[in-house]
């Protein structure tokens, strides 16, 4: 939105877990209204935020996401009545866990975006993208993997020899 992409080296990878009935519809509305926002975000559709397992957020970070957004219906408006309440409780606890693990909480954002709030979707996505861009890439999981005895590399000389012997 502000500076040209060419000046930036780092493009954050943002994954958004959204509910079909509110936030996905809000994002659609932003599209129908031709509102523009950074293209870093990839949206994954869920029936309800209540379906979102914290494991998915961890998986997203593991896969190289630099920022994760979870967004659903406003409290009291859940299409399935109470799914977003369970999501809210689940993630209130999960935030503490992920903070304990050493992930900067500024990379993880929860929001309520209704089907009528195309503008709010744009705001939320843009704000998260720019904030994560300023923070830099997420290195915590990669660093952790490097610390382990097995680096995870599958094409070392030793392994190749074993494969050929089979």
């Amino acid at each position, binding site marked *: 939105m502000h500076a040209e992409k060419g000046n930036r080296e780092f493009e954050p990878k943002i994954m958004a877990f959204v509910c079909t009935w509110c936030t996905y519809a809000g994002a659609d509305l*932003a599209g129908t209204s031709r509102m523009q926002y950074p293209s870093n975000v990839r949206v994954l559709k869920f029936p309800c935020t209540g379906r979102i397992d914290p494991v998915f957020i961890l998986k997203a970070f593991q896969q190289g996401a630099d920022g994760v957004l979870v967004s659903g219906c406003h409290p009291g408006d859940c299409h399935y009545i*109470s799914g977003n309440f369970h999501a809210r409780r689940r993630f209130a606890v999960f935030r503490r866990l992920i903070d304990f693990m050493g992930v900067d909480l500024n990379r993880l954002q929860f929001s309520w975006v209704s089907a009528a709030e195309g503008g709010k979707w744009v705001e939320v996505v843009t704000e998260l993208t720019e904030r994560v861009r300023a923070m830099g890439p997420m290195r915590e999981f990669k660093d952790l993997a490097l610390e382990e005895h097995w680096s995870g590399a599958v094409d070392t000389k030793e392994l190749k020899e074993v494969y050929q012997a089979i």
Partner: protein
Amino acid sequence: MSRIGVFICHCGENIGRTVDCERVAAEAAKLPGVAFSLDYKYMCSDPGQNLVKKAIKEERLSHVVVAACSPRMHENTFRKAVASAGLNPFLCEMANIREHVSWVHEDREEATVKAIDIVRMMVERVKKNRVLETITVPVTKRALVIGGGIAGIQAALDIADCGHEVVLVEREPSIGGHMSQLSETFPTLDCSQCILTPKMVDVANHPRITLHTYSEVELVEGYIGNFQVTVRKKARSVDEEKCTGCGICITKCPQKKIPNKFDMNLGMRPAIYVPFPQAVPNTPVIDRAHCTKFINGKCGVCQKICGPGAIDYAQEDRLIVEPIGAIVVATGFDLYTIDRKPKDSPYSGYGEFGYGTIPDVIDGMTFERLASASGPTGGVIRRPSDGEIPQKIVFIQCVGSRARDKGISYCSKICCMYTAKHAMLYHHKVHDGKAYVFYMDARTPGKNFDEFWRRSIEEEQAIYIRGMVSRLYERDGKIIVKGSDTQLGEQVEIEADMVVTATAVMPQEGADLLAQKLGISYDKYNFYSEAHAKLRPVECATAGIYLAGACHGPKDIPESVAQASAASAKVMTLFSRDKLEREPIVARVREATCVGCFACRNVCPYRAIEEREILDREGNLVKTVAYANPGLCSGCGTCQATCPSKSIELDAYTDQQIIAMIEAL
């Protein structure tokens, strides 16, 4: 091995202008598992859909991904197309590259890269999609209506007139509800019983309505289209088949002085009674708590005198199981009794108004009985204390309503209108009588309502004082009412002969227990909750159960009737087919790993989780596991995220599908 077909839509210029569709198609073709990939101008058009169908047949496609607009737009279109080509529709997914890409990003390179990512994500997801078939649930085309007031009566008549059987269950010995207690109704001043009793008779005579009065719902099992409802028919001590309704037993009963609840305890009735002369059915009930025969074994006059031999002292409660497809709840309301409350009551009472201690302080329903021609005073307004006709009546509005400190913050909706009506009726009967009304606001929004209210002031001489009453006390046989007039800024003291309080409208006693039996939601006041306040106002979140009348919230007669007809229309929608078709996006339990903790049941908003016993070959119980009822489950997936062992899965949103999407990015 998958043979996925990927179809990239240009959507004219909408996508094509920003996203390089040919490049996306080319990249998609390189993905493992993709057997066919093309781009086309308008995928949703007939030729576009034919391309998909042709490819499915010629290329033997196993899955389809259409990259185009939002699935909220055309998922059904493409799923139908795919189904007509012989492929299961749930093996078709859409990738949103219009609303989420081409319409919101300007840079062609960025948009194309994002479109490629999204297509790859959906290709990986669709590989994990399962074949799902539409769920069909059989429907029993019989409705149950709980509550025989005006709303229940209307709902029963509407459904029965459409050709379906209805079972109507009413707790009191007669149907009619509170409307049968009223004298005249606003805004037309129609005689209440005159317009109600024809409908009551219609219900009794209707060939398709089974009427269970003096009965309650004992147990509700099953689910939409397939309920089994156990009704307890309480013992009337009178055989309904034999009784002719002649009424001799009632005249001969020696116990004549039992306060009649129908007349708000102002009138008396015998131990064997019908609640009011126009009762439907006209079969009496013996009040065993006050009947001499049941108290000490003496008397028995009614049995001796009954010609057809209908009196049966040994009659017992009967339990009847009715197979039901849909339930309409129309249990109505009751008025808040404002006397001093016990310590554990959520409401604090209005002891300062003397209700219960000062006999001439009455509530609105009691005034109705006084005004009613068939009431205990024959329609003459008399003071309960000495039977004199009051010359000055003070009406107090908002007693209990709109009072957060006393426990009820809502407005009871009907009281402004019925108080204006009371002032009018009083003026008609006592021409020199003075009616004072202490009010906060005059809420008269309905058709002809405001004109009615103005008439009470301009023609019927009611004196409206804007202010509240602080205290009532007795002095020399009169009631001193102390209040304030906020428009004049003065304290007001009125020496009244009678005070009528417009008390709050509340749900019936036991409303919460019934809701728990049915598995429906209710709010903190015990009013029943609708599925959506604006878009689904007569349905409950629990499928197959509908709401009508004041049990949902304070409501007047026109609205109750309208809502009852609306609920009937919803029931008819359900009954219009033999089988109920539902989208197969439902939860399924993997019984091998489920331990029966039922965390899923606690979070399911639709009460779709049931228990299922796993038995070994000898019939011994191995474990009890969860079972998600496909007739009730709405596919939110909260259960799966909550399950500690991930033994419950939401078809179409399984963990594998989602993780495949994440890993593809």
